[in-house]
C-alpha cells in the first residue's frame, strides 16, 4: 500500500501539472512540493514495515498480458529498495524545497516542477521494480525526465545540446541493457522477475553446473546489462554527458546527477549481483572500468574552473568507485569468500547512501553560491565567501570533508574505507592502487575548490556583494550537513536500511592508505593554491577533459557519417529503388503506353474496333475449325 502511494503520487502530480499548468500557475509548484513531502512520509513509514521473506514481490498491475508474455508492474520491497527509497524521497523533498527559492525568478516554474514530479515517479519505479522489464520501462522514463530537466533553459544553445547529448548517450547504454534483458529473457524461459532470476542462477537452469551453462553467454548477458549502467551512471566510455548536464538548474544537478539517477546504475548492478557473480570475466571488466573511470574523472577534475564542473567530475569519480566496488565484491565472492554476517551489507550501496547526502549537499551549496554571486559559476571569479556566507561555508566544508573522507568524523570516511577494503579484498593490486590514487586526487581538487572559492579576497564585484541566501535554501543545506556527518553511524544506518557492511577489523593497509591519501592531497592543494589569484598549474590535457568530446566528434564524423552514407546509398538503390521506384516506373510506362490506346481519337477507336472484328472472325472461322472445335 505504501508502495502504491509512493509510486503514483508523483505520477498524478506530474499529470495534473501537465494538463492544467495554465490554469494552475503558481499552484502547480505547491502540488509538486506537496506530493514530494507526502511521498517522503510514506517512505519513512515504509521503513518500519517488516521484511516478508517469501513474498517479496507484490503485483501492482498486470501491465501487459499477451499470450505467454507477461510484463507486470510489481514492487520488490526488501532492505535494499527501502533504503534507496528513503534516499530518493528524502533528497527529492529537500531539492523541491530548495527549488522553491532557487527557481523563484524563473518563468517556466510549472514545467520545472512537473518534470521534477515525473522524475520522482520514474526513479521510484526503478527502485521498486520487481522485474527487469518494468525496470527498463522506468529506466527510459528517467532518461526522459533527465532530458526535460537538463534542457529546462532550452533557449540557451548549450543547454539544448547538452540535453540531447545526455539522452543519446543514455540511449546507447539502454540498447545494451535491453539486449542483456532479452538474453536473460530467452535463457530463463520468458521470466525476468528478479527473484526468479536469482533462483535460476543459484539453483535453476542457469547455475554453473547446469547442462546448458555457457560461460560466454553469462558473461555476455552480464556485460550487456552493465552497458545500461555504463550509460546511466556515466562510466567510461559513455561519461561524456554528465559534465555537460550541468547546464541544467543546480537543484536538478543535485537531485539527478549526484544522488539519484546516476546512482540508479549502481543500484541496478547490485540488484543483479547474482548475474555478475556468475561470470568472473564480467566482474573483472566491471571493476576495471569503474576504477579507470574514477581515476580519469579525478584527473580531469583537478583542472576545472567551473564549480559545477568540478562537482560533476567528482560525481563521476565517486560513481566509478561504486561500480568498482560492485565488481570487486563479485570478484571476492568468486574467490570463494562469502559476504560476512547475517545481514550482509554491500560497500557500493553503502557508499551510494553516504555519497548521496554529501554530494547533494555540495551541489545545493554550490547552488547557493551561484545564486548569491548572481549566477556566476567560475571559481576564479569568487573568493572570500567565507566571511560573506558563513552558514553556506560551514555546510560546504562539512560536505567537502565527507567527500574527502576526513578520518573517523565524517560518514564518507567509513564508506570510502569500505570501497577501498573491497578493492583490497578482490586480490587485484592494480585496483587497490588506482583507488588509493583517486582518493588522493579527490582530496586535492576538493581542497583546491574550497580554498579558491571561499578563502582569500573577493576577486570580483559580485563576490564582494554576496550575502547569505534565504532560509528556505539554507535549511536543506543544514539538514544534509547533519546527515553527512552522522549517516554512517549505526544509529542512523540501521533504521535507514543502509546496507552497511558488517563491522570487521579494518585492514591496516586500507586504513593507512586512506589516511595517507587524505593528508597528501589536502596538503598539496593548500600548498599550491593558498592565496593565489589564478591557477598556477596548467595541464591542458586534464582541463580539456582528455579531449574525449573531440575524439567522439571525429569518430562520429568518420565512422558514422561514412556508415550513414553507405546505408543511404543502399536504401536509395535497393529499398527505395527496387521496391518503390521500379514498380512505379514500370506502372507509369505501362500506363502511358496503354493510354495511347485511348487517344480520344475517334478514328483510332474505329480502327481498333475493325481490327478486333477481323481478328475474331479470323480466329473463329479459320483457326478454330482446324483445331477441332
Amino acid at each position: 500500500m505504501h508502495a502504491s502511494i509512493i509510486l503514483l503520487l508523483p505520477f498524478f502530480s506530474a499529470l495534473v501539472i501537465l494538463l492544467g499548468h495554465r490554469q494552475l500557475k503558481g499552484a502547480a509548484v505547491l502540488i509538486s512540493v506537496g506530493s514530494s513531502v507526502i511521498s517522503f512520509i510514506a517512505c519513512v513509514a515504509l521503513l518500519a514495515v517488516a521484511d516478508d521473506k517469501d513474498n517479496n514481490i507484490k503485483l501492482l498491475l498486470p501491465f501487459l498480458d499477451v499470450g505467454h508474455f507477461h510484463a507486470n508492474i510489481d514492487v520488490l520491497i526488501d532492505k535494499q529498495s527501502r533504503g534507496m527509497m528513503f534516499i530518493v524521497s528524502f533528497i527529492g523533498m529537500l531539492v523541491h524545497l530548495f527549488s522553491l527559492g532557487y527557481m523563484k525568478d524563473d518563468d517556466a516554474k510549472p514545467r520545472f516542477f512537473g518534470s521534477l514530479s515525473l522524475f520522482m515517479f520514474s526513479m521510484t519505479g526503478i527502485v521498486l521494480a520487481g522485474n527487469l522489464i518494468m525496470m527498463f520501462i522506468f529506466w527510459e522514463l528517467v532518461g526522459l525526465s533527465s532530458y526535460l530537466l537538463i534542457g529546462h533553459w532550452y533557449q540557451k544553445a548549450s543547454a539544448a545540446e547538452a540535453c540531447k547529448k545526455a539522452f543519446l548517450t543514455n540511449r546507447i547504454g539502454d540498447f545494451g541493457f535491453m539486449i542483456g534483458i532479452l538474453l536473460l529473457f530467452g535463457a530463463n524461459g520468458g521470466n525476468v522477475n528478479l527473484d526468479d532470476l536469482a533462483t535460476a542462477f543459484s539453483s535453476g537452469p542457469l547455475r554453473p553446473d547446469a547442462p546448458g551453462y555457457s560461460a560466454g553467454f553469462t558473461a555476455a548477458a552480464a556485460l550487456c546489462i552493465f552497458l545500461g549502467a555504463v550509460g546511466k551512471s556515466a562510466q567510461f566510455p559513455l561519461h561524456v554527458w554528465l559534465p555537460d548536464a550541468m547546464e541544467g538548474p543546480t537543484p536538478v544537478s543535485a537531485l539527478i546527477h549526484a544522488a539519484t539517477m546516476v546512482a540508479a546504475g549502481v543500484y541496478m548492478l547490485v540488484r543483479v549481483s547474482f548475474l555478475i557473480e556468475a561470470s568472473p570475466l564480467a566482474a573483472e571488466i566491471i571493476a576495471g572500468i569503474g576504477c579507470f573511470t574514477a581515476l580519469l574523472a579525478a584527473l580531469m577534475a583537478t583542472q576545472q574552473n567551473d564549480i559545477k564542473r568540478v562537482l560533476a567530475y567528482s560525481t563521476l569519480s565517486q560513481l566509478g568507485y561504486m561500480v568498482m566496488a560492485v565488481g570487486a565484491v563479485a570478484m571476492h565472492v568468486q574467490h570463494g569468500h562469502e559476504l560476512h554476517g547475517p545481514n550482509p551489507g554491500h560497500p557500493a550501496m553503502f557508499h551510494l547512501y553516504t555519497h548521496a547526502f554529501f554530494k547533494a549537499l555540495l551541489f545545493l551549496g554550490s547552488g547557493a553560491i551561484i545564486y548569491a554571486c548572481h549566477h556566476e559559476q567560475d571559481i576564479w571569479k569568487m573568493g572570500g565567501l567565507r566571511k560573506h556566507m558563513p552558514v553556506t561555508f560551514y555546510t560546504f566544508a562539512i560536505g567537502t570533508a565527507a567527500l574527502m573522507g576526513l578520518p573517523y568524523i565524517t560518514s564518507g570516511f567509513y564508506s570510502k574505507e569500505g570501497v577501498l577494503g573491497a578493492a583490497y579484498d578482490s586480490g587485484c593490486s592494480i585496483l587497490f592502487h588506482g583507488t588509493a590514487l583517486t582518493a588522493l586526487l579527490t582530496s586535492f581538487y576538493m581542497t583546491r575548490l574550497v580554498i579558491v572559492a571561499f578563502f582569500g579576497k573577493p576577486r570580483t564585484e559580485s563576490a564582494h556583494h554576496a550575502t547569505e541566501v534565504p532560509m528556505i535554501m539554507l535549511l536543506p543545506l543544514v539538514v544534509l550537513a547533519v546527515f553527512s556527518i552522522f549517516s554512517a553511524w549505526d544509529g542512523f544506518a540501521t533504521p535507514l536500511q543502509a546496507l552497511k557492511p558488517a563491522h570487521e577489523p579494518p585492514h591496516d593497509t586500507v586504513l593507512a592508505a586512506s589516511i595517507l591519501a587524505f593528508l597528501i592531497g589536502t596538503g598539496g592543494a593548500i600548498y599550491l593554491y593558498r592565496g593565489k589569484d589564478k591557477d598556477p598549474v596548467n595541464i591542458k590535457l586534464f582541463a580539456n577533459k582528455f579531449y574525449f568530446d573531440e575524439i567522439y566528434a571525429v569518430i562520429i564524423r568518420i565512422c558514422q557519417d561514412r556508415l550513414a552514407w553507405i546505408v543511404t546509398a543502399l536504401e536509395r538503390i535497393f529499398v527505395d529503388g527496387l521496391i518503390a521506384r521500379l514498380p512505379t516506373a514500370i506502372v507509369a510506362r505501362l500506363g502511358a503506353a496503354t493510354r495511347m490506346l485511348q487517344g480520344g481519337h475517334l478514328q483510332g477507336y474505329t480502327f481498333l474496333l475493325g481490327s478486333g472484328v477481323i481478328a475474331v472472325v479470323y480466329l473463329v472461322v479459320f483457326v478454330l475449325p482446324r483445331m477441332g472445335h
Partner: protein
Amino acid sequence: MPPLLFYFFALITLGFGFLVVTGRNPVTCALALAASFVGLAALFLSLDAYFIAVIQILVYAGAVMVLFLFIIMLLDIKTEEGKKLNLPAIVSGVLLAVLLALQIIAVAGSTPLAQKSTQGSPLALADAAGKIGKAALPTITNDLKAGELPDAKLIGFTLFDQYGFHLQVIGLLLLVGTIGVVVLSKRERSAP
C-alpha cells in the same frame, strides 16, 4: 432477276459507295450516297422485299440524305482543300477494308448456306395460304391465292402481331429524338 441486272445494280451500289469514300466535295459525297441507296433499293427488290425497298428510298434516300444535304449547306462546308493527306489513317483504313472484304468473301464462298439461289428456293405462294395460321386474313389469303406476294401486308401483320411493343418503343424513340434535336439546336442565350 437476270444476273446482268444484279451485277448492274451491285456495281451502282459499290461504285457510288466508293465515290462517297473518296470524294472531295461533301455535296458530291452526299449525292453519291443517295445514288448508292437507290442501287441498294433495287437489290432489295430483287430479293422480293418490296416494302423494304420502298422504305429505303423514302426514308434513307429521301429523308436522311436530304437532311445531310441541308446540314452541309447550313454549315457551308467547303471542299476539303489540298491539305496534307492523313497517310496513316488512309493506309490503315484501306488495309482494314481489304482484309475485311477478303474475309467475308472467303466465308461467304464456303458456307453451304450461301449456295442457295432464288431459283433453288422458290416462293410457294399458293400453299402458303393454308399455312400461315394467324396471318390468314382475307386480304392476305386472297393475294396469295392470286399468286402475288402481299409483302407490305405481311410485314404489317408481323410487326403489329409479334412486335407490337417494339413498335411502341420505336415511336417513343422517335419522340425523344425529336426533342433531343430541338434541345441540341438551341442557341445559347447569353445571360442578361
